[in-house]
């Protein structure tokens, strides 16, 4: 059984160890490049068009030194790019990244490739929480907090009910319970719309629930979501290998030395915080949290160390792409939620058909 391997063979193996993760890092590099390119393009394209070379001058002037040529054209560009387009671009990247990372986390935690923030009811829970806060007239930080609390209670409900109903074994039970909890929260949401007396706040809630970046894009929101994403991403990064061990179930993970209940609390809090904040800012944007981690897993495999950053960047890129489409191709301001659902549903069915073959 025990053989002494010769040196040459060991060397080959050593290079193989890094090969799968190096493919992941390549992908990360291209995703980052794609984000940069699309950000630059998004900044110059729109109702008013600029040249990429002018954007370069503008960015240079802001980052290091040479003062901006004093002309009205540049001043107009500065306003359009920095106050209107960039906040929206960054916000869409952050929302996509946050939703997709939470999706990846929930999927590994519940060992269920079909769950996502929207399927677990976290999004609709957070949506109801935020609507309630808006109707009551809470200030902004309280809106986020209420969204978070409602999102958490949705996860809690889904986990508890599916444990009672299916002993957490079946992949389908959790999805069904998620559907039920989502629709429960949607009913609350409709009730809030119904009793909301003020026409303006009703329109606000309705538009915002459809998921849109047009109303939400401000530097304040960008900073809030950036802070929350960093806050939640760091712990997830450090537990990513422990999340891997969860793939074999809680008992096996604990036999490998993982403190399962502590780990579950950390990752549910982080994932829910990201989803709730993104939802409180931009409304319900479906499917991203399900599809992007799924596609990423097909490409880089399930190892969380590489899946986590890949989901973050790929989610950001996808969301930016969709929002750029909405902004540049369609007239008016169509909510992005409509596009993500239109694109997401068929893609999901495709993935579903492919995956069941693979899992059984």
């Amino acid at each position, binding site marked *: *059984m025990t053989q002494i391997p010769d040196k040459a063979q060991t060397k080959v193996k050593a290079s193989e*160890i890094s090969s799968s993760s190096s493919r992941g890092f390549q992908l990360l590099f291209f995703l980052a490049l794609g984000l940069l390119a699309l950000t630059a393009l998004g900044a110059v394209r729109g109702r008013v068009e600029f040249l990429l070379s002018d954007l370069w001058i503008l960015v240079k002037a802001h980052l290091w030194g040479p003062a901006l040529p004093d002309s009205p054209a540049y001043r107009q560009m500065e306003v359009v790019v920095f106050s209107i387009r960039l906040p929206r671009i960054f916000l869409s990247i952050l929302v996509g990244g946050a939703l997709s990372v939470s999706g990846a986390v929930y999927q590994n935690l519940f060992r269920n490739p079909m769950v996502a923030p929207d399927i677990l009811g976290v999004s609709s829970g957070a949506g109801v929480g935020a609507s309630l806060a808006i109707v009551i007239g809470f200030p902004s930080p309280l809106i986020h907090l209420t969204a978070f609390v409602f999102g958490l209670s949705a996860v809690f409900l889904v986990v508890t009910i599916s444990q009672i109903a299916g002993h957490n074994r079946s992949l389908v039970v959790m999805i069904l319970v998620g559907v039920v909890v989502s629709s429960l929260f949607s009913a609350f949401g409709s009730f809030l719309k119904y009793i909301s007396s003020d026409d303006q706040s009703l329109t606000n809630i309705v538009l915002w629930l459809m998921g849109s970046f047009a109303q939400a894009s401000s530097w304040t929101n960008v900073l809030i979501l950036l802070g929350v994403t960093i806050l939640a991403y760091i712990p997830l990064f450090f537990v990513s290998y422990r999340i891997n061990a969860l793939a074999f179930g809680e*008992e096996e993970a*604990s036999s490998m030395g993982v*403190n399962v209940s502590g780990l579950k609390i950390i990752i549910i809090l982080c994932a829910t915080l990201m989803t709730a904040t993104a939802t409180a800012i931009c409304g319900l944007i479906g499917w991203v949290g399900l599809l992007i981690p799924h596609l990423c897993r097909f490409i880089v495999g399930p190892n969380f160390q590489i899946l986590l950053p890949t989901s973050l960047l790929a989610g950001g890129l996808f969301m930016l792409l969709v929002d750029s489409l909405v902004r540049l191709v369609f007239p008016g301001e169509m909510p992005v939620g409509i596009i993500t659902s239109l694109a997401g549903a068929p893609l999901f069915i495709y993935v579903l058909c492919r995956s069941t073959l693979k899992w059984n």
Partner: protein
Amino acid sequence: MELKLENLGCGYGHRKVVEDFSCVIPSGKVFCLLGPNGVGKTTLFKTVLGFLSPLAGSVKVDEQDLAQLSTKDRARYLAYVPQAQFTPFAFTVRDVIMMGRTSRFGLFGRPAPTDRQAVQEVIEQLSLEPLAKRQFTQLSGGERQLVMIARALAQQASFLLMDEPASNLDFGNQLKVLKVIRSLAKRGFGVFLTTHFPDHVFQCGHYAALMRSGQSFLTGALDEVITSINLTDTYGLPIEVIELGDIRICRPKPEPKP
């Protein structure tokens, strides 16, 4: 070192399934737990592993009570080899074996070069090189069982607990896994395993426990416990243990010819 189960009582809530079970598993020996379905083998196993807390008694390694250790520290004494099962995610074999190192990761929870080295050594010991880059979900049952053993070895715990390691495998793979278990004991691991096959006990065991319904046990050396009388008594069918050259096997007692 010795893994000691002292007057262990286990069960769920108030329902005691196993009462007053004691045994000692020394390093370098294989201890087999044999018994019919439903007598509480799995419950006992889960209690030893700390998934269930003991209703009475204790599980100790030397004088250290395992119930008082953190999950992380316990993982340095006991490693678990489950029956290879379903996972929805297609981890590579190397990634799966790396999971066994989780309890050894440092402050930031990431593998160090020593962890990669340990994984590589285990892969070489069990001759798993051809599988290392393949996806766990695409392996055969026997290959998965070997990977589960490799994962437990990477944990570098003193004792290995194996839940029916050779069940659900074809004959060739059964022999392969039993051979691995024998070699593990030679290398100094204490092995505690459950099985349904007395023949497997003869092929790799040193000590055995026979669990019978009604919460009664027989524990001790192999030839004292696994006898024709005890097996007949336990399973309620005429069974005999016969010597065949230098090994013993177990078979249904032939009915007298008319």
